[in-house]
């Protein structure tokens, strides 16, 4: 697999399609699995990690999946390529930064990614554009079944799938939905939503997972409990609150439009104007401005640009993507200039051919 090809597409999660895609960016499920006969990754020697990787790599290659997965060895990748995979959410920051033999198997559409030697020997991930947790679950369940026919998972009837960290034991499942909630944030109702979610044991994280800031008003909502509840039980819990949050966000958008249409329109026009003409642009500012533009498109306040284009800009203006596009490594200042010039160019093109 040539990683350069990734810079011509925006990947599954930013495709901007699927149910409720004005608010739900993507749905994602991951399963943590370990091989029964080896110590967990943190206690495995380099030799054992190499053995685990060789074994899983061989079994993954034999999976009856169409299209086939490509395997990438992480130590063989440049740090820029690793960062690229992190930005596309195909690998975790932990896998990018870890030591020793490790890798990831991917489908060309980036819907499936199987990380080898992360915190657990195997982390399966399935991603879907829009609100499609059910579909993601059926897909990952199938991949898990296929793998399970070829490897012996560490499993106990009492504790379920055994994981390095007890917070993942049981189903080993983390289901998450990424939402774009600008109106709830601007109207300061977001805290209320989070408090309600925490009460029912759902976690709220930023764009790039644990510890990351919610830039661009993107939030990931996921389950925390993995033991004592079935996979469908966990999915039902998340699915019982997502429609409500979607409704709140839509209501907040509508009342904002009703109460202060001009203010909102101005905010969006200014964001668009800045993106079209600034000459230095940080990643943070870009995210915030694109978020406003994305809201404007959904509210039909701006016509010059489409959702898939905005989604593409979200990912292409990330540091590693930008450097890939420019074909050169750039320091912070250079990146800000390159980012602004890239945005100007793309928006000029989009404005010349609005869809």
């Amino acid at each position, binding site marked *: 697999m040539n990683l350069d090809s990734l810079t011509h597409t925006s990947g599954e999660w930013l495709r901007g399609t699927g149910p409720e895609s004005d608010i739900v960016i993507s749905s994602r499920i991951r399963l943590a699995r370990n091989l029964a*006969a080896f110590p967990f990754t943190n*206690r495995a020697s380099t030799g054992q990690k190499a053995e685990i990787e060789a074994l899983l790599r061989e079994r993954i290659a034999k999976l009856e999946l169409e299209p086939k997965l490509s395997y990438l060895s992480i130590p063989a990748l440049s740090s820029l390529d690793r960062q690229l995979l992190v930005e596309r959410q195909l690998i975790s920051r932990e896998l990018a930064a870890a030591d020793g033999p490790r890798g990831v198997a991917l489908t060309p559409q980036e819907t499936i990614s199987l990380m080898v030697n992360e915190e657990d020997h195997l982390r399966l991930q399935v991603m879907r554009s829009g609100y499609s947790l059910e579909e993601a679950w059926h897909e990952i369940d199938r991949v898990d079944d296929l793998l399970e026919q070829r490897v012996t998972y560490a*499993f106990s009837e*009492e*504790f379920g*799938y055994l994981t390095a960290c007890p917070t993942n034991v049981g189903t080993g499942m983390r289901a998450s939905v990424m939402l774009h909630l600008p109106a709830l944030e601007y109207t300061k109702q977001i805290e209320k939503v989070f408090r309600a979610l925490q009460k029912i044991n759902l976690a709220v994280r930023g764009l790039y997972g644990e510890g990351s800031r919610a830039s661009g008003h993107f939030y990931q909502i996921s389950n925390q409990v993995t033991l*004592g*509840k079935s996979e469908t039980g966990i999915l039902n819990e998340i699915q019982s609150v997502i429609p409500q949050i979607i409704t709140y966000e839509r209501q907040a958008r509508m009342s904002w439009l009703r109460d202060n249409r001009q203010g909102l329109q101005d905010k969006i026009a200014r964001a668009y104007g800045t993106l079209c003409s600034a000459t230095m642009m940080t990643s943070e500012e870009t995210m915030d401005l694109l978020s406003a533009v994305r809201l404007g498109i959904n509210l039909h306040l701006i016509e010059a640009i489409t959702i898939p284009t905005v989604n593409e800009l979200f990912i292409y203006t990330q540091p590693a993507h930008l450097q890939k596009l420019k074909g050169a490594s750039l320091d912070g200042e250079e990146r800000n200039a390159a980012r602004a010039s890239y945005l100007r160019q793309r928006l000029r093109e989009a404005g010349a051919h609005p869809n």
Partner: protein
Amino acid sequence: MKCQKCHNAATLHITEILGEDQIEELHLCEACAHNHLYEPQQKATGIKTASSGHGEEVDEAGLLNRQCEVCGLKFVDFRNTGRLGCPHDYQEFRDELTPLLENIHGEARHCGKTPRRLPHNKQMQSELIQLRKQLLQAVNKEAYEEAARIRDRIRQLEEG
């Protein structure tokens, strides 16, 4: 003979006299023996405090130093890192983990997907763990022919 605290060969054999009828035999490698002899004597002081009614401290020290026979993880390592060392730890530290799991998840019993090959899986898990242990011992003994034989058996099992 293997060291009781790590996977190296035991070179020092220590007989400790703990009380009137109590003796404890220890078989350790040089590094662990060094630690054992120069560390504050938890066992010995433990007995003293136990008789003066501080039973909990002894249990605590005992627990923290308890080690998984498969991966060598001590409970204190888990305390420090929050990560377990191998699947067997869930059995080894079952009593300590159960309340912790209840705390995290509100439950301590799995209810969800089960591997389809479960009966097969259970048998194989314990056999594989045993074989891995034997393999390590064989390598440590430099018994490479035996190690190769064990490795082939592991491959065979893994192939299912």
